């Protein structure tokens, strides 16, 4: 019985996977459209700079994020110092900040007209920018620092877990063999945490490649902004698709290396089954140094920008608390909720098929569906609009054939496009979350249930779903927050007259008056808190 059932359902899962990979195919097809003068022109002039900027930015952000995250992760995982409990979760908070908001706040503070430079000028009596040197925020390095500040928690989280899982008997052995604490860190702990760092760094690099708002605000041209400009500025879809293809190539190379790193990680974790978590109590000066470092990081990456946002919102509350703000909040919540539920359903279907199917090839649909996470929003938008517009025309042609008035752009011109895009981009998160929950359900449970005469649908409803509840919930939460933050796809795909909080805030950022949009930005950040706190709680329970 379960075999016949699996065949039916695996068909569904293949169908889902094909629909979800449609944009990727569309881009490849578009990019293959033979050369246009515009692409050659770009290649001759600015494209090398764009590619260089993209790679340089990714490298700098990764280095920056590792440098910021590593000391904190190590201290929190292996040492004891005042405030450790607090920093353990508080250092995840920067993840909830949209990078372009942080960038805006720092530009305001550090610009020529900002309070810091004004203060310096007042103290030293300088008159003009020629009188002294001050680093410019709106540069590639500036953007790298901003992105590193909001993305370092990825590395922090993974590195902390890796350090916690390392057996302390190994450390003891190293110390007995005559290593100093520093030597044992460099020669033992760090190499063992390397795969986790690689995974974290590739996540950071992917998020950097997908970033549109920060680099566009800083006018640092990268491939993401180039895709946007080529498409909308030059009006050339095929040149934009070619750029997207280049970008995808870069990203898939990165994912390949990440997978490679993760394969090794399994090996390491098996060695580290023994885990007595005894932490070094740090002595006074060192302990205060650790506290100071973590506090400083938290201040720069979160407290300061968030504090500025709150003060903006306070000053401009009258202007910002209006009908539009409420409407856009509802739009954001509505879309995010819909996508979160939809991706959860897709994830359950795909993983259930994989669980029940005896065939190895049924792994494929969930793998295919997960590739969407690698598509930056701008690239994804191109990949979605092309097939959806085509389908819209087909639908209207069918209506016309029967002499009826067609429904217009039901797919590409409605929130359907937005929901489709978000689902593709974030379904990987839901799949990963359901997948890890499934791993904890013993296959013997399935066997027992089937022996007792449960039909597959009942197996899913009565046995799997109750056991998967937590995993599904975590997936829904994570997808929800990502949907609230996602900007470039929303910017390009939103239907006529539709705004959500992210596009609303970005409009204020690009008009240089975030003050009026601070309230909306705060909502995005606050909504982002909930899953972070939940995520951290569940991690603590596991270790």
């Amino acid at each position, binding site marked *: 019985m379960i075999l016949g059932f699996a065949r039916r359902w695996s068909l569904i899962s293949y169908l889902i996977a094909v629909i979800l990979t449609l944009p990727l195919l569309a881009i490849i097809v578009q990019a293959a459209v033979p050369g246009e003068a515009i692409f050659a*022109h*770009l290649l001759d*002039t*600015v494209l090398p*700079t764009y590619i260089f900027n993209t790679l340089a930015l990714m490298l700098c952000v990764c280095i920056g994020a590792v440098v910021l995250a590593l000391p904190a992760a190590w201290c929190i995982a292996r040492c004891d110092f005042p405030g450790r409990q607090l920093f353990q979760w508080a250092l995840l908070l920067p993840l909830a900040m949209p990078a372009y908001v942080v960038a805006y706040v720092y530009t305001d503070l550090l610009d*020529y*007209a900002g309070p810091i430079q004004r203060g310096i000028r007042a103290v030293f009596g300088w*008159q*003009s*920018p*020629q009188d002294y040197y001050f680093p*410019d925020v*709106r*540069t590639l390095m500036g953007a790298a620092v901003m992105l590193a500040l909001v993305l370092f928690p990825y590395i922090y989280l993974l590195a902390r877990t890796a350090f916690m899982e390392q057996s302390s008997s190994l450390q003891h052995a190293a110390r007995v063999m005559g290593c100093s604490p520093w030597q044992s860190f460099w020669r033992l702990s760090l190499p063992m945490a390397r795969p986790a760092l690689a995974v974290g760094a590739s996540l950071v690099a992917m998020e950097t490649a997908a970033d549109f708002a920060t680099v566009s605000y*800083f*006018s640092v*041209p990268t491939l993401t902004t180039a895709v946007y*400009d080529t*498409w*909308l*500025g*030059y*009006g050339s*879809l095929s040149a934009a698709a070619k750029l997207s293809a280049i970008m995808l190539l870069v990203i898939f190379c990165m994912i390949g290396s990440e997978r490679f790193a993760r394969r090794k990680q399994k090996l390491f974790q098996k060695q580290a089954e023994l885990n007595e978590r005894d932490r070094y109590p740090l002595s006074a000066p060192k302990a205060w140094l650790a506290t100071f470092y973590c506090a400083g990081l938290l201040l720069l990456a979160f407290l300061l920008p968030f504090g500025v946002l709150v003060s903006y919102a306070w000053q401009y509350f009258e202007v910002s608390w209006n009908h539009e703000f409420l409407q856009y909040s509802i739009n954001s919540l509505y879309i995010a909720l*819909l996508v979160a*539920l*939809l991706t959860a*359903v897709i994830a359950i279907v795909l993983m259930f098929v994989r669980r029940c199917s005896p065939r190895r090839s049924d792994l494929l649909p969930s793998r295919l569906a997960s590739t969407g996470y690698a598509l930056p929003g701008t690239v994804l938008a191109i990949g979605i*609009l092309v097939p959806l*517009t085509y389908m*819209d*025309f087909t639908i*209207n042609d069918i209506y016309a054939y029967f002499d009826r008035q*067609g*429904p*217009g*752009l*039901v797919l*590409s*011109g*409605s*929130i*359907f496009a937005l*929901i*489709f895009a978000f689902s593709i981009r974030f379904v990987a998160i839901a799949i990963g979350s359901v997948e890890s929950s499934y791993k904890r359900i013993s296959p013997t449970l399935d066997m027992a249930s089937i022996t007792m005469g449960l039909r597959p*649908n009942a197996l*899913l*409803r009565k046995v799997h779903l109750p056991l998967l509840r937590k995993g599904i919930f975590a997936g829904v939460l994570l997808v929800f927050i990502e949907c609230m933050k996602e900007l470039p796809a929303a910017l*390009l795909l939103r*239907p*006529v*007259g539709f705004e959500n909080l992210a596009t609303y805030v970005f409009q204020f950022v*690009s*008009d*240089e008056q975030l003050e009026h949009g601070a309230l909306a930005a705060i909502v995005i950040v606050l909504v982002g808190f909930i899953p972070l706190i939940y995520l951290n709680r569940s991690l603590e329970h596991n270790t």
Partner: protein
Amino acid sequence: MNFTKGVIALGLACMTSMASAADTLTIYSYRQAFLIDPILTDFTKETGIEVNVVFSKNGIAERIAREGRLSPVDLVLTSDFSRLMELADKDLVTPVQSEVLEVNIPQSMRSPSGEWFALTQRVRNIYSSKERLGPLDITYEDLADPKYKGKICTRSGKHPYNIALVASMIAHHGEAETKTWLNGFKANLARKPQGNDRAQVQAVKEGLCDIAIGNSYYLGKMLQDPNQVAWAEAVNINFPNQSNRGAHINISGMALAKHAPHKDNAIKLMEYLSGDAAQQSYAQINMEYPVKVDVAPSELVASWGEFKADALPIFKLAEYHQAAVKLLDEVKFDL
């Protein structure tokens, strides 16, 4: 089965389509909605036609082209000339024959076939620091003069306002000379091109640079904004090239979409926008120069004085648009 039903229900919830009622009108606008809202509210009061405005900084032409005959848009409003030409070039507009428009809008301010119409004019001015330079008799060519090294601020060279200015330089001097000029201009910049036109005036106030490039109406708008009035008061407004060909003019305008579902309503609005009431609003609220000859600019704008405008026909700029974009890329103006 509940599960399947749930999936279908979710799918249906995603498919929300838009109804199109008879007495409505959809505008795609390159101009921010709040700039035209007061005028549109009056229009709705007068005619009962509801107007939906979709604002987008870029990509409107691309969007209309993709939407094709299914597009919901009736009227496109642009904030510069090149966008109008882009729409016409891509065959996305439909010519309008209207006596009202022909009477209200001078011949030089509309396409001969009625594909597009200008609504307002604006000058690309050169602002100078009151404190450090005072009023100047300056030309666009002077922007490349080494004596202004490190003194000039501007927004992105790729912004339509700047592209149009570069196109006018090509029209007058040819490509080779314009490229040399652009290189000199770039060498004079105090910082990488960034921000909007107002931010350049702010930079002059702060002492970052002495000269800023910006459209005329921004000065008026800044003088009205309590947070920005100090910036505006720190600069003199100069009309460039008064001793020779005159200042570079750009226009904002409108065009009727090719597949407009509500053509009649759209033409009503076009006629309304070219009429006295709307033109006066443009002059008073937005500080622009109205196209309708007998509507005067606002008192403030008039106080900046008379000026000589470049006689180059506006549609000439379109011919050099692509060349201008390529030159800007070649000299890496923004990088």
